[in-house]
Structures are given as structure tokens and as C-alpha cells.
């Protein structure tokens, strides 16, 4: 399959390790991975903060970047950004864009996938041949869980990783408190939510907290780091890309 990587603006700029891991994993699985250079951002921040007209150029840009018929699928290591492509782009295009844009948005959205659903649903694979000899707990991010309904697909993938010590996260489906600009506009409430998430993570004794969204991991990791907990964050893609005898990926230091 010819797979286009959608790096996401945050992944491209701040967490390239998660994106390169996605690229290496898909290449290892035998696919032709491409990176359309025109891509930037899905526009979720604009839509979720109330700036829909300002999201229109980003929605157009996404359709331009990935509209190529030679691309079989677009894969992003983010439930949140894929959620925006799937649920918000049509709203923005319908309100402010042309009918032509609306149909392009529909076409591109139909072939855009979050990593875990792409692996399990489209490629039909759960054992990706990964090796990761560490204690890991997994936080299912809200948008992957409730917008994309990925269910336990990420866990199916993690369970198949050799030598992993996967421990269940208590109250896993509670939000970590990130919520984009929510963490800035309601920083104290967000922190209160984060505090409970951190308690649950540290209670597992895990060395790594993993998730499918770099944004949520940035939030959780920011708290783990501030408190010197000794637990670090790592994107799901980085675990799945890890193979023996390669040196373990580093994640984000605690």
C-alpha cells in the first residue's frame, strides 16, 4: 500500500520520534511510505477554540496535501487530529468552503486513519514484530476512544509486543485534563484532572506511560517531569517500532 504520513503540526515540530517511528513501522511492514511535503496542521486548535473561519485554509491545505489519488491511505499517530479530520473538516468546509471542497474533504477523510485502527482494521495485523522489555501502562486518549472508537485496538497491539510488561491503568478512560487550549484557559481545573491521572499512572509502577496522541503525552509527561516521578512517556508508535536488538527508544525524559 502507498501510505501517506500525516505528521501533525505537533508531531512534526515537537515529537518527531513518534512520527519517524510510525514511518519506520509501516515501512517494516512492507508498505510504501510517503510524506506529502505540503502538509501542515489539521486545524483542530482553531475549531476547538472557536475560530472556524481561520480553520478553513488549514482544511483546504489538508485536502490539497493528501488528495492525490495515488495515496491509498493517510495515517497519523494521533487520535485527536484524525478525529478532527473525520468530524470537523466537513463542518468547516460546509460552512465556509465551496461544494467542491466539501466533496474533496469527504474523499480524503474516508482514507484517513489513526495508527492503531489502521494496523488492526485495515492491515489486519496485531503482532507487528515489536520487542520492548519494559513495564508499560497505557492511557487511552479521549478522542481515540470516543470520537474514533478505537476500543482496545492499541492494547491488542501492545499485548502482542514481546517481553513487554503491560500493566492496567486504573480509571484509564478518564481524561488527563489536556483539552488543547482548555489547559491554558482553565489551567487549575486541568491540573486537578492531571493530578489524578498522575496518581493512577505512578500507582502502576510503570517505567513508561504510553498513548496514541503526542498532545496528551505532552500534558501527562509535563506533569510526570515536573514531579520527578521517574516515569516517562512514550508514543504507542515508538513501542511498536522498537525491535530487537535495536537500542530502546528514549521517549520523553522524566
Amino acid at each position, binding site marked *: 500500500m502507498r501510505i501517506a504520513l500525516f505528521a501533525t503540526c505537533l508531531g512534526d515540530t515537537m515529537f518527531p520520534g513518534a512520527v519517524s517511528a510510525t514511518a519506520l513501522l509501516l515501512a517494516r511492514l512492507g508498505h510504501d511510505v510517503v510524506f506529502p511535503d505540503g502538509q501542515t496542521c489539521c486545524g483542530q486548535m482553531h475549531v476547538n477554540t472557536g475560530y472556524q473561519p481561520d480553520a478553513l485554509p488549514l482544511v483546504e491545505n489538508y485536502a490539497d496535501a493528501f488528495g492525490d489519488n495515488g495515496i491509498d491511505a493517510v495515517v497519523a499517530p494521533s487520535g485527536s487530529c484524525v478525529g478532527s479530520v473525520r468530524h470537523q473538516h466537513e463542518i468547516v468546509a460546509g460552512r465556509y468552503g465551496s461544494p467542491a471542497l466539501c466533496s474533496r474533504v469527504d474523499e480524503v477523510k474516508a482514507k484517513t486513519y489513526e495508527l492503531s485502527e489502521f494496523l488492526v482494521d485495515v492491515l489486519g495485523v496485531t503482532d507487528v*514484530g515489536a520487542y520492548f522489555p519494559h513495564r508499560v501502562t497505557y492511557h487511552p486518549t*479521549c478522542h481515540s476512544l470516543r470520537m474514533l472508537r478505537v476500543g482496545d485496538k492499541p492494547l491488542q497491539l501492545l499485548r502482542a509486543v514481546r517481553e513487554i510488561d503491560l500493566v492496567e491503568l486504573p480509571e484509564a478512560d478518564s481524561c488527563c485534563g489536556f483539552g488543547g487550549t482548555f489547559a491554558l484557559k482553565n489551567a487549575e481545573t486541568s491540573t486537578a484532572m492531571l493530578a489524578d491521572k498522575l496518581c493512577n499512572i505512578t500507582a502502576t509502577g510503570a517505567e513508561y506511560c504510553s498513548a496514541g496522541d503526542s498532545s496528551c503525552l505532552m500534558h501527562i509527561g*509535563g506533569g510526570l517531569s515536573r514531579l520527578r516521578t521517574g516515569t516517562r512517556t512514550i508514543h504507542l508508535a515508538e513501542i511498536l517500532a522498537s525491535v530487537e536488538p535495536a537500542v530502546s527508544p528514549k521517549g520523553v525524559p522524566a
Partner: protein
Amino acid sequence: MPPVPPRGSGNLRGVAAFPAAAHQELANTQLRRNIGKATHTIRAKRLSVTGELPDWEQLRDAGAAVKTDVLNRLPELLTQFEAAVTARGGVVHWAADAAEADAIVTDLIRATGSDEVIKVKSMATQEIGLNEHLEEQGITAYETDLAELIVQLGHDKPSHILVPAIHRNRAEIREIFLREMPGVDPDLDDNPRHLAAAARKFLRHKFMTVPVAVSGANFGIADTGTLAVVESEGNGRMCLTLPQTLITVMGIEKLLPTYRDLEVFLQLLPRSSTGERMNPYTSMWTGVTPGDGPQEFHLVLLDNGRTAALADEMGREALHCIRCSACLNVCPVYERTGGHAYGSTYPGPIGAVLSPQLAGMDAPGDPNATLPFASSLCGACYDACPVKIDIPSLLVELRHQKVEHASFGIEAAAMKAASLAMSSSRRWTTAQKAAGLGRLLAGKKGKITSLPGPLAGWTEARDIPAPPRQTFRQWWNSDEGRAALAQAREKGRQQ
């Protein structure tokens, strides 16, 4: 432009912006503990009784469909409902806003000659601030729902739709009763049974002596004129059956077209609100029955911003709400802040939607304008809602409406700049170079621990890692990236 229907008034707006109000509430450790415990308990109960029904999703679909139908035909159904209530001996009054509804109810109570009234737990009368208004008019209202009574005696405000005293524990309730309840036993302890018995003794006397009751309604049936109240304690039924006069205040969106539609809603409501298969008491009445129950029945149909909400094509879905409070119980924000932070009678996720819709949010500095932002958009509320209100999408829509009406500020300028930078990869890669500034800020620590201005909220409790030396894009176009990819392909071929 079509005429804009008037907004609602009454207890639909707090005094402080959500972040400021939340700041106070977050510091209340007793509240945090009580609400955390209570919401987790109700959550688990709800999941067990919704999970056992094989047709729960179809019930939700049916509930949403019935409510959509009601809103699409609201004028017609209301006229039908009025005629049916009148034909059965009830008197129908129409109230455009809180003040009108308060005045109508006050006049009706005065006409009976009583200066006391007993009350069934009701959100509509909380919304219009009826108790406060009656007090000003020299009429004493007694809340008969145990939790509402605790709130009333404590000179407090409800913090939850279903469990208004969720923020109080039994020690606090004992103190309130000892201080405020006339004729209370001075040796009362904080055993829940004893607390309930004290309230019962106090309330029984009121049930037997007060000749007027005020209630809300969970449902009104358009074709028969029947009203329904569901409750757990039976105190509501006392109020609905014992007095001579019954006055019911009902929001106009509470209609169901036919009696049969109750089949759907009497399954959805108790399972979603208290986590019970069936609530203990369901009272239904139609007009006046000679010689049985109240001999005078008045129905006050309340608009108070509902028509304005109905006029909003996207937002009208919020009028599906049946006030079950399932969204509060699963909300991670509500769980930490409690209900008071929302300011309005309607707290939690649905309150963050309904309050601005009913009462507006466009005036400068309106606290309601902060409510749509009081959510991480985690989506737990949408999953819990028995009538499938897509609350996260409504919050996003209200944020959009808020920004459309706001004056241009720093945030708007930043969003415009980001939009411009991100709408072309050439400009974006240039902007990414600013990440170098982040590396500078991080310094030798390798992380950013303090940021200025609107970003300071983040670094008060969280670090940010230093931006990497290379963006993904740079790695992809580097020899290193190409080599790594080639190696991964090779590895794949070997496997």
C-alpha cells in the same frame, strides 16, 4: 433578519467567570471528596443498569427521535396540550420569562389565602428563582425533597441536578438541621436514618397543614394533557395529592406527543439518573379529578429563553435534555469543580450548553461566555446522554458563536497568525524555526519550566520538553532519515 426571541432570566448566570469560580471550588477539599465519591458510585450503578438492556442504544435513538419530533412541532403540540389540560379542568398560564412565571405563581398562591407552600423538587422553579421571589413576597416555600431541604435550610445553592446536596456530608447535614430546622431534636446525631427521620417529622407536619403545592414536571403528554413527576422519596407524591391547590411550572420543551412515548422515557430517565431500573414513585395526573387530589390545578408553561434556543439550528439539540444528570456524573471537570462553579441552576456539561443558550452570553464580561470553554471535550457526556445530545459538538459550536461576537483581541490575532502560517508548508517550516527559541528557553535543563503570559498556566504545573534539534520534516529529508527508512524496509523483507 427574523426577530430574535428574548433570552431567559432568573438563576441562569453566575457572578464569576468559570475559571475564577473553579479556583474557589477546587480548594474545597470536602467538596472534592464528596463529589468524587458520589459521582463514581452513580457512574458504576448507571453502567450496570444500562449495560443489562440489549436495546439500550435503540432506546437512546428512540428518545432522541421523539425529542426531535417534539421540537419540530412544538407550537402545534403546545396548543394541543393546552386544550387537553383545559378540557380536564386545569388552568393553563403562559410565562415568557422568569419574572412572569414568578408573578403568576405568586398571584395563584395569594388567591388561595395561604402564606405557605410545599414544593416538589423542580429544576424549573430553581431556574426562575421562585423561592427567593416568594420570600420577598412574604410567602414561605418548603422544599420537600430531602436534598433540596438540606440546601434550603443551609441557605445554600444546589450543586447537582439530581442530588442537589451532593457537596454536603452527613456531619454537615446534622449541623444544618440542628441550626435551622424548627422543632429539631437537639440530640440528633449524624446517622443517616436519624437525619432522614428528623426531616420526615418536620415535613409530615407541612404535608398535613399547607394547602398549596408547587411542582415541576418531568413530562407533559400533549394528546391527553397528563403531567408526570418521577422521584425516589414519595415526598413529591405527598405534595401532588394532599393539598387543595397544585401549581405546576413546566418548561415548554418537556412535552411528549403521546402517552405511549413514556414507555421510552421511563426506561431512559431512571437508569440514567439514579442508576435504577425504575424509580420508586411515578406520579401522573390529568387536570382535576372531583373528590380525589387537588381540586384546583394550574399549569404555568415557561419559555424563559427556550424559544431563543430553539431558533438556533445547531444548538436546539440541547433542548432534548431530560435533566437526568448522567453527563454531570461522568464529567471530569464537574467531578473536580462541583456544580457551583457553573453559576447557573444547570451545572456540568449540559449546563455549560444550556445556560448560555437560554440566557445568552454576548454581553461584555458575561460569565456565561466562559462556560463553553469549561470542558476538555473528552466526550464522556455524549456517551452517557440518554437522548444522545452531542454535547462536545455543541460546546464547540458555542465557542464559535462566542468568538463571532467577541471583539478582536490577542487570542484572535494569534489564531489568525497561526492560520496564515499553517496554511502553507513553506510558511510553516519557516515558523517552525521559532522552536529554536524554545531550545534557548530550555537551556541546559533540556526542558521549559516557566512561560510568560497566557502560557504561564501550563508551566505552573507542567514542564515542556525542549524542542528537538530536528523537526520530523528535516529528519525525513536527511541522510539519516533515508538510511533508517531503507533499513526498516530491508528488515521487513527479511521477516
